[in-house]
């Protein structure tokens, strides 16, 4: 790899790390992050994880976090910080820049450098790198599979077949939607072959050596080992591999319409290309789409590609279109699903930037456009900062979805203070009641309290020193005057919790927490 490309990758890595690691604790914990954190805690505390085919995706995230925790000698689960979880997905987000050398001879030097920079700065990539969910691991595994497959296609060395197999296995063990990526890849591969044979036969690649069965078997073996090891929870859960197939029954139900996440086909493009709900900056990653279109066109046109390989570029273009179409046609949508096709669009955009600069003459014009592209990249970086830090949990951010309100932190702080005023401290009894278990991420925040009960409906005896109730229950638990309803707390936009506190405890709390000086 060229020294300048290596330097560009390092620069991208530094920029990407800066954006991904800054103020990781600031954004409140999302429902899904909290569920993943509790599952990780269970694995960390008990050494046990069992794949659940009904919800919560595959085991990779939990085992990756466990490995990270072991390497960094993590403390007790109760002392984990939010950053400890989110750093894991950040590492995978940054790892995608480090994987680029695997396909650098397919993207070309300039294409690789620009792809690294855009991966580092794309607001979607930055935002979800800081999000403790499975998506970034899925995209990382997809790039690993692509890198291994591409290298094997070029070199026919068994090691690359194994890398591709590991990547495919990790995809499967990360999230059930890997099948969509595989389908898109199969479609792109078939169409690319057809293109070479029937449309542009003169440009067909040199005849590669025939596929080696031993190599293929090694790749398949690697895939199988990864899948079996992870789904059986390291050979402790025999039902795991079968459950990884059974999982499609509930998922298909959701895709078929039994879900609160049904959105129109344009859902992803609205968020990626122009999102301007007012009273905040408009967000757009349109520059990436424009460059990706140019790169894709060049893959078919085969002009100005430089050292980029048209076969890989065409494959990426067809894969991106197919995967975006699949995700858009499926009614079930959550915004992080866009990462799969947006990452390959970024790779194409890298190629597109190289093509654009190669096309332009004279040199002054090329330099001017390069400066413009850098300004556009800087704007993406600015948006990434706005999305990840300034508007991290704000609905004006296109990547925020059903997010926990910052107000929950106020609730948790109040409960922590109440425990300090209660003789039992963190053994104080807390009752939480919310229909449909709609109290997350509180189980994470209250994990160090030993006497917390969680109900979907009001229990026969709802009273306790501290009660947290969904406001929608309209439970008048302060009518007996033994308890006070001391405030509403916003769990998510338009979803509220009520905090009830025993009168005596509340008086003690007030005495222990004297008010600040009165305002002038």
């Amino acid at each position, binding site marked *: 790899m060229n020294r300048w490309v290596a330097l560009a990758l390092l620069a991208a890595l530094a920029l990407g790390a800066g954006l991904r690691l800054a103020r990781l604790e600031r954004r409140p914990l999302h429902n899904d992050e909290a569920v993943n954190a509790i599952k990780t805690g269970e694995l960390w505390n008990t050494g046990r994880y069992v794949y659940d085919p009904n919800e919560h995706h595959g085991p990779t995230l939990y085992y990756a976090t466990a490995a990270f925790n072991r390497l960094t000698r993590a403390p007790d689960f109760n002392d984990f910080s939010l950053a400890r979880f989110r750093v894991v997905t950040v590492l995978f987000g940054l790892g995608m820049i480090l994987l680029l050398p695997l396909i650098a001879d397919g993207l070309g030097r300039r294409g690789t450098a620009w792809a690294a920079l855009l991966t580092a700065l794309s607001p979607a990539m930055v935002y979800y790198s800081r999000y403790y969910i499975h998506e970034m691991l899925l995209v990382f595994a997809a790039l690993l599979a692509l890198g291994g497959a591409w290298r094997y296609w070029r070199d026919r060395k068994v090691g690359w077949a194994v890398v591709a197999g590991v990547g495919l296995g990790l995809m499967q063990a990360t999230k059930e939607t890997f099948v969509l990526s595989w389908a898109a890849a199969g479609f792109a591969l078939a169409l690319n072959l057809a293109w070479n044979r029937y449309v542009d036969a003169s440009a067909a690649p040199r005849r590669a050596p025939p596929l080696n069965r031993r190599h293929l078997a090694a790749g398949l073996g690697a895939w199988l080992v990864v899948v079996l090891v992870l789904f059986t929870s390291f050979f402790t859960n025999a039902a795991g591999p079968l459950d990884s197939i059974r999982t499609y029954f509930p998922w298909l139900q959701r895709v078929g319409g039994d879900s609160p996440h049904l959105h129109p086909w344009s859902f992803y493009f609205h968020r990626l290309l122009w999102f301007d709900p007012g009273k905040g900056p408009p967000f757009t990653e349109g520059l990436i789409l424009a460059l990706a279109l140019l790169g894709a066109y060049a893959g078919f046109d085969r002009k100005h590609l430089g050292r980029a390989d048209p076969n890989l570029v065409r494959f990426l273009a067809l894969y991106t279109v197919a995967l975006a179409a699949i995700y858009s046609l499926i009614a079930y949508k959550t915004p992080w699903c866009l990462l799969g096709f947006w990452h390959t669009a970024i790779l194409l955009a890298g190629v597109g930037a190289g093509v654009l600069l190669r096309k332009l003459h004279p040199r002054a014009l090329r330099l001017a456009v390069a400066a413009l592209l850098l300004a556009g990249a800087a704007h993406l970086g600015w948006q990434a900062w706005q999305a990840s830090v300034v508007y991290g949990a704000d609905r004006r951010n296109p990547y925020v979805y059903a997010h926990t309100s910052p107000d929950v932190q106020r609730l948790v702080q109040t409960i922590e203070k109440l425990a300090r005023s209660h003789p039992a401290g963190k053994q104080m009894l807390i009752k939480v009641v919310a229909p449909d278990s709609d109290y997350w991420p509180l189980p994470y925040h209250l994990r160090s309290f030993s006497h917390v009960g969680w109900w979907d409906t009001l229990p026969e005896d709802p009273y306790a020193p501290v009660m947290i109730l969904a406001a929608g229950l309209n439970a008048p638990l302060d009518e007996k005057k033994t308890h006070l309803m001391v405030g509403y707390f916003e769990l998510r936009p338009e979803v509220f919790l009520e905090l009830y506190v025993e009168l005596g405890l509340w008086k003690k709390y007030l005495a222990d927490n004297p*008010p600040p000086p009165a305002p002038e």
Partner: protein
Amino acid sequence: MKLMQNSFRRPAPRAVLSVILATLVGGSAVRAADQLVPLDIKLPSPAFKGTPKDIQLSSYVEPLSDKPRPPMMVPAGLKNVAPDAKISSSDKNATADILAKLVDGDKEASDQSIFYLRKGTQWVQLDLGSPQEIFAVVIWHAHNAAKVYHDVIVQVADDPDFIENVKTVFNNDQDNTSGLGVGTDREFFETHEGKLIDTKGVKGRYIRFYSKGSTESALNEYTEVEVYGRPAK
């Protein structure tokens, strides 16, 4: 979930458990001869939940109750004395033009109808010109989304510095973080109806409205206030 169940089984110090026991039995008598044993509380574990439903941005949110507010009975002949009042605020960035929105009769949820005061406990104050007998006030902070305002306090006084004859007619600052006394009123959702407060004919020339951010933001929003009264005798 095992994690939580395991933590419930941890042995607790006797003194702590005694307190829990006393709390749970609601103060019922425990005979001295009775041997105290740890109370085995079976608490349900949290159930995992999938990604919750996302709420789209909207400029109008239905009120939380579909029942109209019952009418408040007041003496005949009252009028809204707020529009003629001189307005001031703790936020010195709020100019007279901005503050005028408070009594312009525009109670809509649009951005044009709302103005903002900075973070922390802030107030707006009306000088009614002469002592008034006030029977009701209505406050609209902002009803563009379901939210709850914190530390809503309404005080009436005879002087602009709120030193003489200060009467608190509403206070939901239950933890006294604004330092004006422990409130006993409940928090409320912002709705298009506004918050109606029965002030029971309290007398005063100056009326002050405090707030300290909402569940949505640390900033303080105000749309409109109305003060229903008549000249004090």
